[in-house]
């Protein structure tokens, strides 16, 4: 397993990078020639900005480029290849696992300038967008047509569609709408040679679209995507149920799902988070609760009352102390703002937080939360839980101060222990953020050598020389292909 405990930023010219001295001047000159001065950054202070994502460790790139078109992305890949530099795609850098940071130097390709909605096909409920488009901007763009884009990671105000595709991002509403892969219809991709190819889920042949979604920038660079849009629901209800403790709240979650009720969102926050959120947002959460459930129903007015009655009854059966229904759109939005801002609100508890992302079978939630609690306690770490309970997707937030090496070590140790808990309970090591750099060595705990080799065969086809986001997903020491394809 990692621990990349050190916060010293790794050098861009570390072992593995072929770009030294004169070559790096060539790289810079060629990139500027192709894209113009303002799209190429090589000054140390600029590179430092791109050294981290939301993970604890990072590394400095050789150059950062800001392409404005597919043609420019293609040119960048060709130049980087000529200079022996790997290529790391980057959206907003909100990923949790070091997926968007360079580990061996290389060129960071930041998609922030490719942020437009290119086409809207209302009749067939789809839109073609560039990868740098911010998730929420798409829903805003199509709202007047009565549509929205369903996957809604908590980072949706800043995270980009490209990054969402790379990690197969989830979000609270994926409980009923499914994750990003269910919403991607077609892709335009620049491959490892700088050539463009397209995929479409309606094309006959292998489902390359599905293979690319969640591949964390290791199989190609998405330069545009057709996305499925969903009709805005007629009736939306949001309820808050307060419980005495996390156990009874998780039992209620299991019972709701087992009863065959699938709300559009079913989110849990424990006392640590509830109090932090309430202090920051005044969302109206009961601060004396051991855990609260935020439940959303979206659908038809006809079914809303029945859904409320059924869920309320289950909540009461599991000891809910209070139940509140949002009375207005504003109240619903306030309740959601608290949930979406929960991670940020922990700034009141500690200067830094580390978010783990694991998924367990829903019926194992109570057990999983107890294991998380004891793993944190064993390492002396404060933990807050705010997560997609309906999917069994846990997000323990571990609070720490990154200036204290001991705390950092304790946090990394706890994060690692939580991965083991999830595996032991029949779950997985990433629900919606990917493997990236952080969890690559944990892959061997969930998959056999043969399982990983099958994935490696896909990599062999799309990135035989391992130039696209190297050192990610696959465990340390996974080697280059045994048989290099032509």
């Amino acid at each position: 397993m990692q621990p990349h405990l050190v916060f010293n930023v790794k050098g861009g010219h570390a072992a593995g990078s072929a770009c030294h001295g004169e070559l790096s001047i060539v790289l810079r000159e060629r990139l500027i020639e192709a894209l113009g001065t303002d799209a190429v950054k090589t000054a140390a202070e600029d590179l430092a900005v791109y050294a981290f994502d939301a993970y604890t460790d990072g590394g400095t790139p050789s150059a950062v480029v800001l392409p404005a078109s597919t043609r420019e992305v293609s040119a960048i890949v060709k130049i980087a290849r000529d200079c022996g530099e790997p290529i790391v795609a980057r959206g907003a850098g909100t990923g949790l696992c070091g997926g968007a940071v360079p580990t061996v130097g290389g060129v960071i390709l930041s998609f922030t300038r490719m942020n437009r909605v290119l086409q809207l096909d209302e009749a067939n409920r789809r839109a073609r967008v560039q990868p740098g488009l911010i998730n929420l901007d798409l829903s805003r763009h199509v709202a007047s047509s009565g549509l929205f884009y369903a996957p809604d990671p908590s980072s949706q105000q800043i995270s980009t569609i490209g990054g969402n595709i790379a990690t197969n991002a989830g979000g609270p509403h994926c409980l009923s709408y499914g994750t990003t892969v269910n919403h991607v219809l077609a892709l335009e991709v620049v491959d490892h040679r700088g050539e463009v190819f397209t995929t479409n889920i309606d094309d006959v042949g292998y489902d390359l679209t599905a293979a690319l979604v969640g591949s964390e920038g290791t199989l190609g660079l998405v330069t545009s995507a057709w996305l499925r849009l969903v009709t805005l629901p007629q009736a939306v209800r949001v309820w808050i149920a307060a419980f005495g403790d996390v156990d009874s709240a998780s039992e209620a979650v299991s019972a709701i799902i087992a009863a065959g009720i699938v709300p559009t969102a079913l989110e849990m926050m424990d006392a640590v988070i509830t109090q932090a959120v309430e202090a920051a947002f005044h969302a109206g959460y009961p601060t004396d609760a051991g855990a609260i459930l935020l439940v959303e129903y979206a659908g038809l007015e006809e079914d809303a009352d029945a859904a409320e009655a059924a869920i309320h009854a289950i909540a009461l059966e599991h000891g809910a102390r209070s139940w509140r229904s949002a009375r207005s759109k504003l109240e619903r939005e306030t309740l959601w703002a608290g949930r979406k801002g929960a991670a940020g609100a922990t700034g009141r508890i500690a200067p830094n937080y580390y978010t783990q992302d694991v998924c367990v079978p829903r019926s194992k939630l109570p057990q999983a939360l107890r294991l998380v609690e004891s793993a944190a306690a064993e390492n002396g770490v404060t933990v807050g839980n705010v997560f997609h309970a309906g999917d069994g997707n846990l997000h323990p937030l571990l609070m720490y101060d990154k200036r204290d090496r001991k705390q950092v070590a304790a946090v990394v140790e706890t994060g690692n222990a939580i991965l083991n808990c999830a595996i032991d309970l029949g779950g997985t090591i990433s629900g919606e953020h990917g493997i990236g750099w952080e969890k690559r060595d944990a892959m061997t705990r969930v998959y056999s050598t043969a399982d990983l080799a099958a994935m490696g065969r896909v990599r062999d086809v799309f990135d035989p020389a391992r130039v696209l986001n190297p050192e990610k997903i696959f465990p340390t020491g996974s080697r280059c292909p045994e048989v290099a394809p032509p």
Partner: protein
Amino acid sequence: MPRGRAAVSIVQERIRPTSTDSVSEILADSDRSGRKVSIVGGNTLAGMGFPAEGPDTTLETTGLTGVVANEPADLAIAVRAGTPLQSLSTVLAAQGQFLPFDAPQPHSATIGGTLAAGWLGPRRHLYGRIRDYLIGSAIVLADGTIARAGGMVPKNVAGYDMSRLYVGSFGTLGILVQANFKTVPRPPHARLFLAPLPENTRSRAMAQLRALAIPPAGAFWVDGFHKAIDGAAGDEGRIVVLLEGSNALLERATRDLRSALGRAGVPETTVTDAGARESFERVVDAYVACLGERSITYRVYPFADASEECTLRLHEVAQRFKLHAETIADVMNGDVVLRVSDRDARALAARIETFDDAVHEFEPRAQVVAGKNPQRDYLRVWGEAPAAIEQMRALKARFDPNRTLNPGRFVGGI
């Protein structure tokens, strides 16, 4: 002969293994010795794609049956790939759940075959594709390697989505031996609407159906298929609509649907609850039902708003070739099934190749999905090659370098 051969029963050159290990042994041995293997499940979608080139062995997956793990409270189930769809549906129905496979002949069709064919059913506009329910898998690759992916949880981004990659691969990358699904609570009630379409009502009726506030689970404009699909026909054919949901929802949806059809000028509607789902399944069965050697069935995939025009064009082309044409247009998703036939198989054979050219000139992606006419294999069964055919060929070469599995069965000679 692979070791452990005693564990499998052999019918002529057909093998029906009953365990993952024996599938692995058979493939490893075939791959080493250069024997070609064709794979068959319930044999219900054999009319899609080309037959595998000269297989030495036919591997039947129907010996791999049964539920491996069932977690009703987690909405998750794992089954072996040779399990018939109907068996799984029965298990799920008993626990108030379902999966929207919507594939023909569910008593024979297997889970593995349905996934391998990437079957697209009519409820996908509402529930998504069956690939979106596949959360884990076990595959035996051409060299006998057993590779697992995913697991039993609904969200999983640990490495590539290998499970979805095998969906629609027609067994050319590996043999699926186990599939894990997330399941869906089953809508408690279903209601079927049948209505003949009088002159000048079809366009409006289709537009009204697409615009319903409560989308129907399935909606079809049917022209022909008189014995196979219920309902009396009008001048412009008939519509078949399935609604699913709670009683309260059905009440409102029924009112909405009646007034929508009224606005479209459709006067009579038959409404039935009993046998509603069975009627709907008969529509799906008709997608690949063939009249022996006398018919060929195509499927094309226009967007929903172009479905009617596409169907009318297909009728025109068929008429030009003096072929009897029957169609099913999926109003919500847009795709169209076209069955062309003649009273005489030889007469069909004589015209079908030029008809095939004409269809593809108009709709390059048209696929042949059924038909036992001997001329079938000379048609452009897969339609035009996909844009990324080069990448697909490279995948095939990396997964199955000796072309052991279903050689030539898939698009572009894969």
